C-alpha cells in the first residue's frame, strides 16, 4: 500500500454508521475535506499508520465515532437579534454539542422570505464552525396571509420551508404551500399548534396550569393541527415534516399517518422527552417556557415510544436563544424557547440510551442519518466521498453543564447544573477540527 496524503486519520474508535450498517472498530481516512476511506484496522493499515506523522492521527480509543450530527431545527437569530445569538456563536454552540450541520429557521428580522436574506445567511455562515442550511418562510413575513416567493427561495438554496413559531392557520393557504413546495421536492415543516386553542397560553393546559392560574395551551391544539396537516398532505401530496411533536395524541396521529402511507416525517425536541409541566411551578423559571410547551409524564413516555418505534424520525433541539434580560421578566411576558444545541447529545445519552430506549446506533440515526434524509442534505454517513463531518464522543464521560460552558451569546438553558453522561470529544467539519472537548 502506497502512502497517500491524508489530512487526518482517526483510528481505534468504535465507528457507528447506521447508513452503512457499520458498527465496529475502524480507521477513517480524511482527505480534501471528504471521507477518503473507512476500513477495519489490519496489518497493512497498522504498518502505514505506525509510521504516519503523529499530528495527522487522532487516537479515538474508547470513543464512539459517528457521522457529524445534524440539527434540523435551530434559531440563529441573525439577522436582527444579534444580541441574542449570531450565526457564528450559534455554530460554535453547534460544534460544542457535536453538530456539524444545522438548519436555521426563518423567523429572523428581516424574515427569511427572500433571496437576499438567504444569501446573507449563507455568506455569514461561510466561516462558521458548522454548515448552515436555510429554511425559508412559507408565507411572507410569516404572517400566514400569502405565500412567500418559494421558487426564488429554492433557487437561493433553502432546503425546506416553514413558518416555525406560527401555525399556518388558514388551511387553504397551507394546502397551497404543500402543493407549491411539492414542485421543488422540499419538505414543508409545520409548527402544529392551533392559534385559537393555544394562542394566549403560556404553558401546557393541565392541573398544573389550573393550580398556577396560568393560561393553558391544550394538547388537543397540537393534535388537531397535526391531523389537519396530515390530511392536507394526504390530499395534495408533498412532504410534510412535523416539528417538535410534544403530545401523545400527536405521536399517535403521525403513527397512523405513516401506516396509511402518507409522506410525513417528524422530529422531537429533547425537552419534550425530558421535562414536564410540574417543573414550572417550582420557581416560575422562564427558561422552561417554550412552544409547544413541556407536557406531562404521559406525553414524555409517548414521545419516547414514538422515537423507539420509528414514528418520530429524528431529534432536533429547537435551539432558541433569548437574551438574559428578555427572559428575566414576568412569566407571562417572557419569550418562548430555550437553548438546545449543547445539551441535546447529553440528554439523548442520559434520558434515552442509559435508560435502554435507544441504542447508540438508533441515536445516530435520529441525530445524523435521518435528519440528512429528511432535509436531503449531504452527510449523515461516513461513506467514502461523503463530507468529512465527524463527531467523536466519549460515551461514558460524566459532565455537568455550567454557565461557563455555554457558547451561545444567550444563557437561557433550564439544564444549568444538570449532570450528564456522554460528552463530545471532537467535532470535525469538512475535515477541520472545530471543537475539542476539555
Amino acid at each position: 500500500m502506497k502512502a497517500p496524503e491524508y489530512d487526518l486519520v482517526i483510528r481505534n474508535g468504535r465507528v457507528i454508521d447506521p447508513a452503512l450498517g457499520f458498527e465496529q472498530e475502524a480507521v477513517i481516512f480524511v482527505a480534501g475535506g471528504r471521507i477518503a476511506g473507512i476500513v477495519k484496522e489490519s496489518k497493512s493499515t497498522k504498518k502505514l499508520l505506525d509510521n504516519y506523522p503523529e499530528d495527522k492521527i487522532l487516537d479515538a480509543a474508547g470513543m464512539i465515532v459517528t457521522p457529524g450530527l445534524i440539527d434540523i431545527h435551530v434559531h440563529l437569530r441573525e439577522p436582527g437579534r444579534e444580541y441574542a445569538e449570531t450565526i457564528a456563536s450559534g455554530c460554535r454552540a453547534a460544534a460544542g454539542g457535536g453538530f456539524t450541520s444545522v438548519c436555521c429557521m426563518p423567523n429572523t428580522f428581516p424574515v427569511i422570505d427572500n433571496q437576499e436574506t438567504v444569501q446573507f445567511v449563507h455568506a455569514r455562515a461561510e466561516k462558521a464552525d458548522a454548515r448552515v442550511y436555510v429554511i425559508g418562510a412559507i408565507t411572507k413575513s410569516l404572517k400566514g396571509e400569502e405565500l412567500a416567493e418559494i421558487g426564488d427561495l429554492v433557487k437561493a438554496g433553502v432546503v425546506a420551508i416553514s413558518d416555525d413559531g406560527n401555525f399556518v392557520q388558514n388551511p387553504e393557504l397551507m394546502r397551497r404551500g404543500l402543493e407549491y413546495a411539492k414542485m421543488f421536492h422540499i419538505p414543508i415543516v409545520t409548527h402544529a399548534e392551533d392559534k385559537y386553542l393555544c394562542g394566549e397560553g403560556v404553558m401546557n393546559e393541565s392541573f398544573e396550569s389550573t393550580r398556577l392560574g396560568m393560561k393553558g395551551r391544550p394538547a388537543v391544539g397540537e393534535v388537531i393541527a397535526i391531523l389537519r396537516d396530515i390530511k392536507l398532505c394526504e390530499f395534495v401530496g408533498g412532504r410534510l415534516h412535523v416539528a417538535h411533536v410534544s403530545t401523545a395524541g400527536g405521536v399517535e396521529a403521525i403513527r397512523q399517518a405513516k401506516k396509511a402511507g402518507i409522506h410525513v416525517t417528524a422530529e422531537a425536541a429533547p425537552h419534550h422527552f425530558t421535562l414536564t409541566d410540574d417543573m414550572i411551578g417550582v420557581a416560575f423559571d422562564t427558561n422552561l417556557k417554550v412552544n409547544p410547551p413541556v407536557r406531562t409524564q404521559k406525553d414524555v413516555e409517548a414521545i419516547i415510544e414514538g422515537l423507539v418505534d420509528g414514528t418520530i424520525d429524528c431529534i432536533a433541539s429547537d435551539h432558541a436563544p433569548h437574551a438574559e434580560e428578555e427572559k428575566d421578566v414576568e412569566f407571562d411576558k417572557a419569550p418562548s424557547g430555550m437553548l438546545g444545541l449543547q445539551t441535546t447529545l447529553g440528554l439523548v445519552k442520559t434520558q434515552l440510551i442509559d435508560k435502554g430506549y435507544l441504542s447508540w446506533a438508533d441515536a445516530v440515526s435520529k441525530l445524523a442519518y435521518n435528519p440528512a434524509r429528511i432535509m436531503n442534505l449531504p452527510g449523515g454517513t461516513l461513506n467514502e466521498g461523503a463530507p468529512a463531518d465527524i463527531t467523536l464522543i466519549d460515551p461514558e464521560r460524566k459532565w455537568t453543564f455550567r454557565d461557563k460552558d455555554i457558547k451561545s451569546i444567550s444563557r437561557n438553558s433550564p439544564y444549568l447544573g444538570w449532570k450528564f453522561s456522554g460528552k463530545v470529544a471532537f467535532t470535525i467539519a469538512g475535515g477541520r477540527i472545530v471543537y475539542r472537548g476539555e
Partner: protein
Amino acid sequence: MSLRSRHLIGLEGVAREEIKLILDTAETFREIIERPIKKVPTLRGLTVLNLFYEPSTRTRISFELAEKRLSADSISFATATSSVKKGESLRDTVQNIEAMKIDMVVVRHSSAGVPYYLTQCLDSNIINGGDGTHEHPTQALLDMFTIRRKYGKLDGLRVILVGDVKHSRVTRSNIWGLKTMGASVAVCGPSTLLPYEVEKFGVDVYTSIEEALDGADVVNIMRIQLERQQAGMFPSQREYTNLWGLTRERLRLLNKNYTVMHPGPMNRGVEITNEVADGDASVILEQVTNGVAVRMAVLYLLSGKKEEETQ
C-alpha cells in the same frame, strides 16, 4: 410559634398552625381598629411599598390603612404614572425603589408568579396582593377570618365558591386555606368557567347551583368579569343570572344560619340580587372591615423576618 416563610406568596403549602396564628393575631387587631384611636406603633420606622400593577380599590386601601394603623411609612405605586410606561423592566423598577430603603412590598400584578419573582429580585418581605389568576392569600385569610368569627370554627363547615372559578385567584387561595383548616369545599359555575381538572384540588364540582347550595353553610361568590361574556365564555348575562345568580329563592337550599360572602366588586343584578347582597346573612361589608385587621396581622407577623430566621 411564627410563620415559616418571610414572605406570603400563597396559601398553598401554608400549615394549619400558621393560618391559625394569622387569624388569632388578626383578632387582636380587629379590636384595635374599633377603638377611637386606631393606631399602634408596631411597625414604626418600617417602610412598606404598595406595588399595584393592576387596578384595585379594596385591597389597596385596605393594605394602606393596615400599614398606617401599624405606624409604618407607606408608599404607593401606580403603573399609570410610573416609568413602567417608559418601558422599564419589573426587576429594575423594584430594585430602584428598594435602593431607597424599603422593608416590605405588597404586590398586585396581572401575571401569575410575580410575587415569587420579586422574592428573587429583592431583600424585602413580599406579600402577594393578588397575582394573575394564581393566588390572593390575604383575601382568603379575611374570608376565613370572617367565617370563623361567625361560627367560631372552620372545621366541618361546608363552603361553596360560585362563579368564575377559572379566572379567580380568590378561589384558589380559598380552596387551599379552607381545606387546610378542615372545611369542605365545593366549586360551582358554568363548565366553561371551571378550570381543567379542577377536581384535583380535592373539591366537589357542580354546574348546578341548586345542587351546590344544598346543605352548605357558606356561599362565597366569585365575581363574573363582564368581559368574559364578550370572550364567549357564557352566552349572555341574562342566562348567567338565570342559571347561577344568587337569589333569595336559592338561599333556601342552604343550612340554617347560612352566610353570604362576596370579595367584591359586585355586579349587582348579575351574580347576586340586591336583596341577597344587602340581606341579613350578608357579611360583605364585614369582610372589608376584617380585611384591614387580617392585613395588619400579616404585615406584623412578617415584619423584620430575615432570611436566616426562616426554616
